């Protein structure tokens, strides 16, 4: 089996994987980082979003081998020194989550959105989050949270 190495949340990992092993499987099953969720099998729901070299990707649609040598951040790596990331804080303050299952992917997508667009309008937020499905919140409070998170991130 081929070996893959990558940095995940600032720590270096390597491991043997089958060629068909997905990045999401590697992160969850081999590294035990279960914050990244699997909500579908057609690359539609966004529960699995992580950052690879600073850009958001659906880890269920990326082979682990494709991330060889990459710098990966998962939801577990977002808070620093026990301090929630401003986007995490904004989701909490604005009740942007209910069951929490979509939340890791939603937050990772939202951070990427704001990285690319520091001061997004409601319309921009709604358009940009259309790769992330949430069945609980109706998105109303997610949109509010992303706006507040953008401000918190200094937008």
């Amino acid at each position, binding site marked *: 089996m081929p070996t893959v190495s990558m940095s995940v949340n600032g720590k270096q990992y390597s491991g043997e994987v*089958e060629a*068909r092993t997905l990045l999401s499987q590697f992160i*969850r099953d081999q590294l035990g*980082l*279960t*914050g*990244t*969720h*699997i*909500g*579908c*099998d*057609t690359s*539609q*729901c966004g*529960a699995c979003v992580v950052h690879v070299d600073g850009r958001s990707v659906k880890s269920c649609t990326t082979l682990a081998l494709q991330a060889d040598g990459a710098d990966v951040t*998962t*939801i*577990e790596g*977002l*808070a620093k020194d026990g301090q*929630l990331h401003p986007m*995490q804080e904004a*989701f*909490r*303050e604005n*009740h942007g*989550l*209910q*069951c*929490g*299952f*979509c*939340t*890791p992917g939603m*937050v990772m997508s939202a951070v990427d959105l704001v990285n690319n667009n520091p001061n997004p309008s*409601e*319309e921009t*937020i*709604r*358009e940009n*989050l*259309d790769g*992330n*499905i*949430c*069945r*609980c*919140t*109706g*998105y*109303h*409070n*997610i*949109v509010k949270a992303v706006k507040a998170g953008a401000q918190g991130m200094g937008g």
Partner: protein
Amino acid sequence: MADNGIGTRTVRKEDQRFLTGKGNYLDDINRPGQAYAYFVRSPYANAKINGVDTSAAAAAPGVVAVLTGQEMAADGIGPLICGWMISSKDGSPMNAPAHPALAVDKVNYVGDHVAIVVADTYNQAKDAAELVEVDYDELPSVTDTAGAAAAGAPQIHADIPGNICYDWELGDKAVVDEAFSKAHHVTSLDMINNRLIPNAMEPRAAVAEYDPGTEDMTLYTTSQNPHVCRLIMSAFLQVAPEHKLRVIAPDVGGGFGSKIFVYAEETATLWASRRVNRPIKWVAERSESFLSDAHGRDHVTHAEMAMDENGKFIAMRVSTIANLGAYLSTFASAVPTYLYATLLAGQYTTPVIYAEVKGVYTNTSPVDAYRGAGRPEATYVVERLVENAAREMGLDPAEIRRRNFIPNDAFPYETPVVHTYDCGDYPKALEEALKLADYDGLAARKADAQSRGKLRGVGLSAYIEACGIAPSAAVGALGGGVGLWEAAQIRFNPTGNVTVLAGTHSHGQGHATTFAQVVADKLGVPYENVEVVEGDTDKGPFGMGTYGSRSIAVGGSAIMKAADKIIEKGKKIAAHALEAAEEDIEFSGGNFSVAGTDKAMNIGEVAFAAYVPHNYPEGLEPGLDETAFYDPLNFSFPSGVHIAEVEVDPDTGVVDIIKYSAVDDFGNVINPMIVEGQVHGGIAQGVGQALLEGCVYDDDSGQLVTGSYMDYAMPRADDLPSIDIGMSPVPSPLNPLGVKGAGEAGAIASPAAVINAVTDAIGADIDMPATPLKVWQTLNSAKAAAE
């Protein structure tokens, strides 16, 4: 009001772990040495099984076992059950087919379960499942609701002629027909309540473990009601005796009804884990969820409303065919009967109502409760009829409602369809909603839209629901096989902090926060010192779980009762310590004090005294730990008015929701932030039903056409508007918190509001989902007809 007490927008305790990836969902649980399960499912909608050859699969790499329905039956594992008996018009009991967890000689829908393959890895189990050879004789199938009971339709279960489960009625047909004969005007409508697939974002899953030493079994499962799951598994399915089975529902990623039921997969996984003497994990792929999660709705209805010359409703008549799917799921039979027809009075004084419901089997996934369960279907029928009646009679849709509302002085109000409403102020909610929606400015907005070539419409929905499910005796009288009380335990620990153990289950509702607010407020302990524990049959009392917007109304009441017991005992302890008479002890803000003095003891000190009873009342048991069971006196009846305003682009048929206004009466609200979130989410699901979602089976083959997120349109962020919410509370007099429940309201109210708005805009009738194609076709066929 305490900082985190009742009525405050307290941020949630559970969010820290969810936001940092530390939640504990089913797929995050792994047991040492676990194997993995994958199910062999029927590719056919209706087929006879001649034989199952498992030999090649069993010989595949890593395979531990391949088990079929034959082996399950031989082990005495009983069929899945439906817990609600419905009788037909003629008094005969419903026809319930055998529902083996693994099929024995016949499969009845695409996705039906044939075998469980257990292997060392998930991929090995999945690969080996391909090697199971099933010899099928494919039979013709029927998936269509209206056609299932038609003459010549394929027969699904040999012992159930005409595919009819029941032909049920409520009300006196002769009386209603008589009233119709005197009507000034009759409005009638044919409606389809489209079939939905619940799609909680966490797929269903199970991890089962057997301990050969103690013979204990543990099932981790995505359940809204773990205690009920255990009861069914032991009493009916005989998988394990109740005292040897522990069911744990950890963090669960949404339910919406779909995780109430006991399904084939967790049953087979638990059974197999004992057979192979290894923990087994099964996690559904989303495609499997589409195929075999219980679906929702799926009614075909003809309904009529009779009016006098003033637009007063004098009678209503409803005839519905309800698709139950291939088998009866856990509560399926009750949904289109007692959870549906009993709500047809709506908020109105309609004096006589007749409803008949034919429950039919089809070659589709079983249909059961989905957010609202019967009540959205009822509201859709009532509110579309009312809106159309207003238009046909030239009345303002708000005005026809005003004329027919149950007046405030009529409560408690007994409707002609079973329920007695406790309280409400329907006119007030209507006026507040009209204001929130700027109803007065509508004409100008319509004119403006017209000048831009757009069609603007507004739709109202004045909904009612029966929540706080439910008084046990009433449920029993209607055929329910369970009691529907709730239980809670408040345990003061010796150091004064508090563990609340509840029989409900949170899968997004925020019980860890809300229940802690209630206890902190009632007992005067710091909110931070209250921990809520749910979801484990080994922890806390038996409870009935979370569904039907019952957790605060029934579970919250059980917590209040347990708190009363704590206070009562605390008074005895304090009286002794303070050398006063028990009658002189007052409790407030966490302090027991002697009336008229400054002598006091706080509840933490009382708890310590209870566990270190050195100076303690004679004969009183040590400890401060009280359990209460609460059986509600009645259902609760949340209500409200939702108003949707849409704009339709006649060139594309696209419907844009411009404004959505909701005014709800949930009684007292513990945490407005959480309740508003529930309303938002419910509305999103209702808007999804109205505009986007629809489960489609291919008529010929019985294949599920909408089997993934590429074919089934889930509402996404850019499909929905921002939502304006107002609260118009009339506290319920029937429970100690004055609450009514809020979880389903949005999904109940919104489909009618949106479709009423769309039909107002396009001037023609339309069925859900009102997709751009359907709207465009409707507009163009209306145009063609006019030309």
